[in-house]
């Protein structure tokens, strides 16, 4: 008789999920699935709304990365208006995007992942959370909280509000950046740089303890996709897409994100609300690709800022040109945080960012618009069709987390095979399965456009589907 283990809800991720682990008669894991069990229908409810409402409406998809949705949505709007942004608006958008990635990555690293990393995967569950960590490492936690605050403060200073600011619009942004706001941003830079470097040092110091996890938490070959600029450097706001394979060979380069549907497609499985995007030329599921920090760091030639580049060199010295180990998402996230702080400084010192002209105005000049940017969790696409009056007729959202769906499933299965052993479930086993998911820092609210914080359930089932054991954590 074979069995199935279910982890539900998966904790310390954004959203709701369930993991099913199928085991055979001997308790050996045969397969595992990561299901997303909620559905929201944002694409549907946007239909019939005016184009200019879209950035605000789409921002509501997620409270962690509203900025990414505002940006992708505004960019789709720019394309529909057929305008080129005033330089100040363009730079404001880039600045806020870096701030958004920084605050989201800080949340992922300090608040969500560091309990596992610093206290250990087998630390008792009552202590293995942010507050437990705060008792043991108050300084580390304090700095992490401050760093996230920095990112959010920038969003507040530029956008007017920390979460869901009314700031981005088709054609630009709503208001110029003030000198005072710019100066405050610059004041934070030294502390932010120090915190990120401190976090990187801590992470590198403990990395060796996680050999087992590095090997088995989602270490498999796949494609990686990310946005790069003309020089092959990291780019968050606008550039071309590059795909590399598991050895780092460039599979495709210079892809125009506005033509994403020519090289990406989505498959659906009846056991999950989250779709399964894949790289079209390699088919489904062979076209499995990963996005997000690890993917971006894998595809770039260099980061494009001095400190981040130094870390990238060291990162690459730890293995091949390309890291397939999902555990390294954490590492990549840290390198990106460094890049963000450096970029924020660069953008904030650029006098053009203070420009008064921040909005290009135009009517509806194209009936279709696609906007993409690099969200904290990977490439994000918003695709709209409008009528001549600017009323939205059709929306397609391709979300970063969904693009990691195939990879997360692969990672969960691999972790389950390694750490779960048959008829009994232990906290440590389940936590490793969860940790495999958490590497991707998935945001399920975004990817299913689904609502609320959802916890994880893990179910243990026989191959025929009979439920054997179930563990739920809220």
């Amino acid at each position, binding site marked *: 008789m074979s069995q199935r283990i279910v982890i539900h809800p998966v904790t310390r991720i954004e959203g709701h999920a369930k993991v099913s682990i199928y085991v055979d008669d001997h308790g050996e894991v045969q397969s595992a699935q990561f299901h997303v069990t909620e559905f929201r229908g944002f694409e549907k409810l946007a239909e019939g709304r*005016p184009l*200019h*409402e879209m950035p*605000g409406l789409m921002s*509501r998809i997620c409270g962690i990365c509203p900025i990414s949705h505002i940006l992708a949505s505004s960019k789709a709007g720019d394309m529909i208006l057929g305008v080129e942004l005033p330089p100040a608006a363009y730079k404001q958008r880039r600045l806020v995007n870096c701030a958004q990635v920084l605050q989201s990555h800080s949340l992922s690293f300090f608040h969500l992942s560091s309990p596992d990393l610093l206290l250990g995967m087998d630390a008792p569950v009552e202590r293995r959370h942010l507050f437990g960590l705060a008792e043991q490492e108050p300084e580390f936690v304090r700095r992490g909280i401050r760093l996230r605050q920095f990112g959010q403060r920038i969003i507040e200073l530029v956008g007017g509000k920390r979460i869901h600011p*009314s700031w981005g619009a088709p054609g630009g942004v709503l208001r110029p950046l003030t000198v005072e706001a710019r100066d405050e941003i610059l004041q934070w830079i030294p502390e932010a740089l120090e915190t990120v470097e401190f976090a990187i040092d801590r992470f590198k110091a403990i990395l060796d303890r996680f050999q087992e996890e590095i090997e088995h938490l989602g270490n498999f070959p796949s494609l990686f996709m990310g946005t790069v600029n003309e020089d092959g450097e990291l780019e968050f706001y606008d550039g071309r897409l590059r795909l590399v394979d598991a050895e780092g060979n460039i599979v495709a380069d210079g892809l125009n994100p506005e033509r994403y549907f020519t090289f990406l497609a989505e498959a659906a499985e009846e056991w999950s609300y989250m779709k399964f995007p894949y790289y079209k030329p390699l088919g489904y599921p062979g076209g499995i690709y990963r996005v997000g920090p690890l993917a971006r760091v894998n595809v770039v030639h260099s980061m494009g800022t001095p400190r981040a580049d130094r870390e990238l060199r060291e990162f690459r010295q730890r293995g091949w040109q390309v890291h397939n180990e999902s555990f390294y998402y954490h590492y990549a996230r840290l390198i990106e945080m460094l890049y963000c702080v450096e970029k924020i400084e660069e953008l904030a010192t650029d006098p053009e960012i203070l420009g008064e002209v921040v909005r290009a105005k135009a009517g509806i000049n194209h009936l279709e618009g696609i906007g993409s940017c690099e969200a904290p969790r990977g490439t994000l696409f918003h695709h709209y069709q409008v009528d001549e*009056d*600017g*009323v939205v007729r059709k929306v397609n959202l391709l979300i970063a987390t969904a693009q990691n769906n195939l990879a997360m499933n692969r990672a969960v299965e691999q972790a389950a095979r390694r750490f779960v052993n048959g008829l009994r479930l232990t906290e440590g086993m389940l936590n490793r399965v969860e940790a495999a998911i958490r590497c991707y820092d998935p945001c399920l609210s975004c990817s299913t456009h689904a609502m609320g914080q959802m916890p994880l359930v893990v179910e243990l089932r026989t191959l025929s589907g009979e439920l054997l054991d179930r563990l739920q954590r809220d």
Partner: protein
Amino acid sequence: MSIKTLTIDGRMVTGAAGESIFDVAWNNGIRIPRLCHVGGISDVGACRLCLVEIEGWPKLAAACLTPVEEGMVVRTQTERLRRHRKLIVELLLAERNHVCSVCVQNGHCELQDLAAELGVDHVRVYYRFPRLGVDMSHERFGLDHNRCILCTRCVRVCDEVEGAHTWDVAGRGVNCMIVADMGEPWGNSETCTSCGKCVQVCPTGALFEKGKTVGEMYKDRRFLKYIVTAREKRQWIR
């Protein structure tokens, strides 16, 4: 012109014969809530928010439509009135789809302000969630029926001040809708002069300038006083 003396909320006030309780109260700094009244155009008593108690009267009266009378004793802020007003606002919110967080008028909406003022922290009736359209056919303006409260300010200002009479109300009950001309898309209207007066007097985000995004719409109705003064007194002053 004869002068009437009356008591509003315990204060002795005076107003000209024919003046409404509403105007006299406001002239004396007594704020009565309203959504359909706007100074400079006629009153219709559509929103029922300005209901007041008058001693000796069996029913509540709409302050905007009730002329002052000698010796009247009016109360504008009783617990009963507050209850009624709160329910009216809840009904308005439940009748159509008010999603403030993504509305062009968010933060400067008369309905939203009133809801906040009356302590509407939730709505006790079921939302109707009607499927209503947005008319974006006009070159400069949009009409979102989801946010329309049928106050008819737009209908009156267009008729009485602009003189175009583009807007009307069609249908009955919950099917009641603001229509341009004989129910044409606004952009096809032959009577609309695109002056935008209707947009500026609209208390909510129902009428707005195209291209405005969340919270970006501010209404400016200083023009009304200017035009009305110019017309009535032949004085062109702001």
